[in-house]
């Protein structure tokens, strides 16, 4: 069983973790075209290579980012997510 390193809880068996999908930038819903939005919602790249993914250490609920090479099945690094400057819709009133 593979080992993954949670940035908070350390090295654990992969069975303690849950996958949360690839880290993807959501296009701004206000300006994006229907086609680009559909592409964002439905299409994923399965090409083997380095992927940036969401992973959760389930006993603690810690979410973090894992960079994984799916061609070699190796985990390159893991770190906590730092929200970049990102386009977000205005907060609700």
């Amino acid at each position, binding site marked *: 069983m593979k080992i993954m390193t949670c940035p*908070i809880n350390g090295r*654990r068996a992969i069975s303690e973790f849950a996958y949360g999908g690839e880290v993807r930038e959501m296009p701004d*819903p206000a300006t*994006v075209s229907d086609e680009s939005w559909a592409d964002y919602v439905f299409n994923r790249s399965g090409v083997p290579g380095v992927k940036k993914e969401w992973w*959760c250490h389930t006993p603690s609920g*810690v979410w973090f980012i894992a960079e994984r090479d799916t061609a070699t099945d190796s985990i390159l690094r893991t770190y906590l*997510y730092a929200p970049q400057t*990102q386009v977000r*819709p205005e907060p*609700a009133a």
Partner: protein
Amino acid sequence: MRRLPKVEGERIDRSEEVRFLFEGKPVRGYRGDTVTSALAASGVRVLGRSFKYHRRRGILSAADHDANALMQVRLADRSVPNVRADVVPVESGWQVSAVNTRGGLAHDRLAVLDRLKPFLPVGFYYKAFHSKRLFPRWERMFRHLSGLGTVDLRAARRSTPKRYDFCDVLVIGAGPSGLAAALAAAGRGARVLLIDENPAAGGSGCYARGGASTALNKTTALLSDVGADLRIRLLTSAYAAGYYADHWLALVTNECIVKVRAGSVIIAQGAYEQPAVFRGNDLPGVMLASAAQRLLYHQAVASARRVAVLTANAHGYAAALDALGNGIEVAAVLDVRDAAGALSAAAGEELTRRGVALHYGVTPLEAVARRGGEVAGLHFQSRTGRSSTRHRIALDGVWMSVGFAPANALLYQAGAQLSYVPALAQFLPTRLPPGVYACGKVNGVYGFEERLLDGRAAGDEAAAGLGFGSAPAARVRPPPLESPNHPYPIFPHPRGGEFVDFDEDLTVKDLANACQEGFDSSELLKRFSTVGMGPSQGKHSNMNALRILGSIRGESLETLGPTTARPMFHPVPLSHLAGRGFTPERRTALDEEHAALGAVWMPAANWRRPEYYAVPGKSRQEAIAAEVRAVRTRVGLIDVGTLGKIEVHGPQAAEFLERVYTARYARLAIGLTRYCLMLDESGVVIDDGVVARLGAESFYFTTTTGNSAILFREFGRLATWWGLPVGLVNLTGHYSAFNLAGPDSRALLAEHTTLDLSNEAFPYLGLREAVIAGAPCRIMRVGFVGELGYEIHLPAEYALDVWRALRASGARFQLQTFGVEAQRILRLEKGHIIVSQDTDGVTNALEIGVNWALRMEKPFFIGQRSLAILGKQPRRQTLVGFDLPAGALRRPREAHLILDGGQIAGRVTSTCLSPTLGRCIGLALVTPAVAEGKTLRIRVDRGEEIEAAIVAPPFYDREGERQRLEQPKPAVDAIRPRAALTSARRRSPLESALAGAAPERSPAANAPLRFLDLSPRERFGCKGPGAEPWLAAAGFTVPRAPNSARVDASGVLVARLAAAEFLIEAVEGGAERVAAARGQLGSAARPAEVYPVARADLVIGISGAHLNRLLRQICSVDFAPLLESRAATSGPVTLTSMIGVSVVALLRDGIDGEPVLTLWVDPSFAHYFWTTLLEVGRDIGAVAVNEYSGAEARESASSHAIHQRG
């Protein structure tokens, strides 16, 4: 075939005789004898019949791949199939017989198959028995003719444990190189686990002696060094069945599978000696030289009187010396090569001196049998210069030593690159993955001293790779002086009978035929001919088959490459693989109550819920209908504690909910609730529930039962992704909930609370926090079942008392508990959907009539953008209601099809016979065209079609009067608390579990493992940006590092869980301080930015010397380092999973010096966790105790007196 006088290093105990029956005849041996060696010592040479042709077979390897010596062993209480005679120690009283015979081993009637050989060519099954109709018959016949042992179906059920183990360096194989490797790694400070598949370590160092004692003495010295090194654990009778990612290996022991996590792995598994392939090589008496040596030195058995040694390496010469040294006559040494090699020359000279004839350039022609099938002679041809001579010698044994095949299956699984090296005629690991090392014969090193050096180097490298010392110099491999392996020890005979695979009865001709049929790649050849697919998994056949394939194709093994080696490396008993399973089950706090009321259970996600309550004399349908009527006319009570229950706190809590759910919550008034609907990014409906506003920055909301865990996790991800620092608290297991619904619900509830329940003070969709029956509760006026109703949510530890109080006074109102099925009918009468029943994985929010809940004008919610696109497109389907006239005979069922002009136009999603309306109603997802019509055509059972009227739901109380305001029942003002406001008390989640399981309890302080329920301790949790400063200001000692805990001087534990959540518990005192802080957290004067975390945990204290033995059966985390460094007042917190359940674990030192492990577990897992832990612990002598004794007494001193047992 006789027992020798005492041999140095023998593994038998001559003082203890073993008597057993073989094929009905009594046999004697000694303790330490295998079945094979005991039989051999008694002169029995035929041990079994071959798989296909039922030929007589004897000893081949004596090393766990004698697939023709599998035994059925009858014991007093059961019968065990496929016992490997060559390695399993025999015991007195066994009744042993060969598998796969008819009429006994000696006169097997199926031996006739041997004469039918010409009619049974390779691939014969595929060609002759492909008729689908007749195949089952043929299959039965062949299973009968060619089989293995018989499974004893009467054998008692056994539960095999599973274990975890950990080490720095795992050394697989305890032969000379493995022993040297283990010592070198341990010498650098690494914790080493050394395993060997044999009952005793030492490998070939103990039996390949060449007539001398040097190797034995050195091996014995190594073994004693290993025994003296405390860092090395030696595990014998254990093999590594598979290598998995990151040095995770499955070890198979006699008792169970052990899952080992190693820092690095050294493969020192050696090599299997390989048979020479010549006519008659399968006759009993023809065996591998190493098999003969093992019998000689392990069990002091001479396997023959007069042997010829057929060889191509120095090992054969050494074996000949071993024969001479033990009184076995050596008729000749037959060297396949033209001359002896550099390593065998000296032995050859000695053999000549001692009168042994040496022949070179030998081609074995045929081994011939005497009557009875045993080998009696060997015909061979030898060559000197250009002249060749034919010889015939009489003998009763042929020892083959022509080469080895490396045991490199695990290396292959680990991803090593294996390349054929012609100089050695062997596959060698030429590139190893990080952390994997090889040494000894598997690495192409055969000399005894060289193997020690190679092993030592591997041990140094493996330890250095983990940081133990500096990297050693690179290994140098001097070119071999003499190859141990012959490149082509295959000698076809015109009349065939040269066996390549002894398991599957394959000869050279069979493989040639398979190639001729076109199956001429190694993988195809294997599948068509089944070579290597028998019980020995090709250990003695794959190499020769590959050589034959190479010869037929004219290719070298360098290009053919090795065959794939997958787990399992060796057959594993199914009982081991099945092992003890862990299936976590959740139960609500009211589980025992439901059971007592006759609940019929149904699974709901990993919970169990009452489907309905059985009533004697009533059918299921009648019982459910009665439950429905009670809710409509009087009052009903349902446990809805399985709902996901979540709090979200913080200035951005409202924004978080607005982004997650489709409706608006920013302006939701405090004390009100609102329906919530969650979509995925494509606009598909995935969940729904209710959001209640507790305060300006605090909300409480529910999810469906099945989604609670996964959605809570996803909420955490979304908050992180969106950069919304909200405090999310999962109360699902820590809170209970039940719904009191029906016209009388207000009157009943009023008896237990001082809360003003009038419609004005507590309107429909309102939320109130109040004390009910003495317990702090949240009450929501909801209308899911369509009646006046109060959904009561409260900390799980109070649930039982409040439920009982309501039921007690409910008797006056004829209160009816109702189950999930009645609730489904009630909501269907109201036309309320159930997400994932009335929707599926592609149903979007525009299709189910909930547009009122979709606030498209909001800036953002998940799925909003997709709905905007979908809104522009024609609708795919629409949810409609339908009903059938009362008394309709044929009724639809869920998933029945809706037809439109003979085409499928939808399906029924929900339907029932409404007890309230007296007719069948339902919901269906249909095409828009059908939805616009007046009727539905539904295809029901047996293909019949019925017509139903389309009716807009709700079917019952269309105006929703009943759930909003009650009809003139007793005037609200007149209602006053009548029942005494009973004071509910906190209860341990184990109270019902213990009542059900009734474990053995003992005050035994000296039990090796003691379990204590610590749930009643005073405790609370909190998180949020203000939590740490508030705790510090309140005088608690807050540990700084993530996942650490401290117990302060007053006995209060503060644990930091992960980075920023806290658990505070009175472990050795300080209960009042903890209670006071908890009170403040729950009060209106809650400190700013501190979010309470309800902790109704099951808390178990486990103490005792055998703690780690338990941990190694329940958790994949290695606690050994924590056990070594444990302290009394502080320690690291481990958030991990045990037996499938998330736990918080803290290891501390008890006063008496024994470790005390405290586990905090979600209380809904209490029953499962406690009973499973007790079951696992039983083998270790675990007992449940009422209180810690002696020095641990202080642990329980702070346990509440309220914790009583029924």
